[in-house]
């Protein structure tokens, strides 16, 4: 895996910084950070599927929604404990991941993106009309059990989950599985021509992505204590996840985290000036400029900056 001590030192430093943050920031900022952590989880999940394999999903809330609704229904309607409902939700989401995989065996590119978008729309319509006594229909559900109380505990829960998922993903992607998944995104036929089953690899990517989406979605609604279909299946939510991964640096683990934090704070700081949906115009414009400057994202810009600094240092 080519692990060096400095890798763990950097991860340790990152974790310590995040864990001491509540001592220095307001409760309001902490709530923004909680959302950033969940967005980072969803962006990592999206990146595992789309950033690595090149199968761009426009319907990631389909997976997040399966996780969220499964645990919401089990806890609210059937009084199942969260310790049981969350693992069931994750398994259900992984089954959902296999459903997303099916079109990926036949189609790719914009066709695949459109099918996933249709999947999200389908589940959005279904939760509203099929058994609204279970799903809560258009209004969703409130009064769900919560895992934590207060912003500080919520923050620690979200940051722990995000770090655990990020570190696991980072480690897995450093193995030959990560190399093979990235190879699919570059040339699927050549992967097959190298003796690797592309179907098996795609299944691994889709299941891993669904695992993260299901876990993130389930824990997220047990942080909120409610579920609202309109917010969950909002097209802006999809684009926020995708843009976070893209401008952070698709195909990396740290990129989606950086992108999620950048976008969350950007949207939050724009709120007093642009309270409506116009905020999304500003952030899309900014994302576009960033993307044009460096298609590999902020993470690549960061490395370029370090390389430049290093060259300057050597010259002096």
């Amino acid at each position: 895996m080519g692990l060096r001590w400095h890798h763990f030192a950097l991860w340790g430093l990152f974790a310590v910084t995040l864990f001491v943050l509540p001592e220095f920031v307001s409760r309001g900022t902490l709530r923004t950070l909680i959302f950033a952590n969940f967005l980072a989880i969803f962006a990592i999940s999206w990146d595992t599927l789309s950033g690595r394999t090149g199968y761009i999903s426009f319907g990631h809330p389909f997976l997040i929604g399966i996780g969220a609704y499964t645990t919401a229904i089990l806890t609210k309607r059937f009084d199942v404990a969260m310790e049981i409902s969350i693992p069931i939700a994750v398994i259900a989401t992984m089954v959902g991941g296999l459903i997303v995989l099916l079109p990926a065996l036949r189609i790719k590119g914009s066709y695949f993106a459109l099918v996933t978008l249709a999947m999200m729309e389908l589940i959005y319509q279904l939760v509203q009309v099929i058994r609204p006594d279970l799903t809560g229909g258009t209004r969703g559900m409130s009064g769900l059990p919560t895992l934590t109380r207060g912003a500080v505990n919520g923050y620690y829960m979200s940051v722990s989950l995000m770090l655990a998922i990020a570190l696991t993903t980072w480690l897995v992607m450093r193995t030959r599985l990560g190399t093979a998944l990235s190879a699919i995104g570059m040339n699927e036929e050549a992967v097959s021509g190298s003796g690797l089953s592309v179907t098996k690899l795609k299944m691994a990517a889709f299941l891993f992505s669904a695992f993260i989406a299901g876990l993130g979605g389930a824990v997220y609604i047990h942080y909120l204590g409610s579920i609202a279909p309109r917010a969950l299946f909002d097209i802006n939510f999809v684009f926020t996840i995708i843009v976070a991964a893209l401008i952070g640096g698709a195909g990396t683990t740290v990129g989606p985290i950086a992108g999620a934090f950048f976008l969350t704070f950007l949207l939050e700081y724009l709120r007093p000036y642009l309270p409506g949906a116009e905020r999304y115009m500003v952030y899309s414009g900014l994302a576009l400029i960033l993307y044009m400057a460096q298609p590999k994202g902020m993470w690549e810009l960061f490395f370029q900056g370090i390389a430049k600094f290093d060259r300057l240092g050597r010259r002096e």
Partner: protein
Amino acid sequence: MSAKLEIRNLVKRFGGLVATNDVSFTVEPGQSIGLIGPNGAGKTTIFSQIMGEHQQSSGDILIDENEISRLSTPQRILAGVSRTYQVPRPFSDMSVAENIRVGLTPDSIWQMITRGPNPDRELELAESVGLAEEQLARLPSELSMGDLRKLEMARTLATAPRMMLLDEVFAGLTVNEIAVISKLVQSMRDDGMTFLIVSHDLKALEPLVDEAIAINQGQLIAEGSYSDVMADKAVRASYLGAE
């Protein structure tokens, strides 16, 4: 150990077009056969069918007497046959070492996670095709066409083939690069590798093959020693454009 390839009555139709028309031939273990024919004759289509990238309409493909038609491409590679492509297909954002690593990766998710890469083997494969150690960290975009062909050979060799299908292996190469690739193929032949080679560069192909097979419009028109095939009237008419 070398592999034996048998093609029996192979037919491939694309709608109304018959791309492979009842083609049969055998490549014995350790033998090297040149597959020649004009553009559009159906040479690459035969390669694609052997590798399972295109499913034949009818006919049999056997490796070491075992029918492989129902196997997927990775399973055929596991059976011992690998190919290179007319246009090299490197993984563009990966280094040379990582490109070779993909070929060395076992087709098991569990082993991909638990077994680390083998840099020594990557270097060994790179050097075996004439790539230098300092090139391992380079991106494919930084390589010449000759080095891209070498990289493709290295990635193909990483799958441990017993038979290699080389498609236009000399295309776009300089005279020096052709000499290097020829030497490489010769040394692999000496080690017992079975080859089926497609090339338009007949001069470069001649010393590398024991026999030749000529096809035109999907049909086998001549087979035998290289000189006999080249002297064949039908071959000259179709391939060389002479009566």
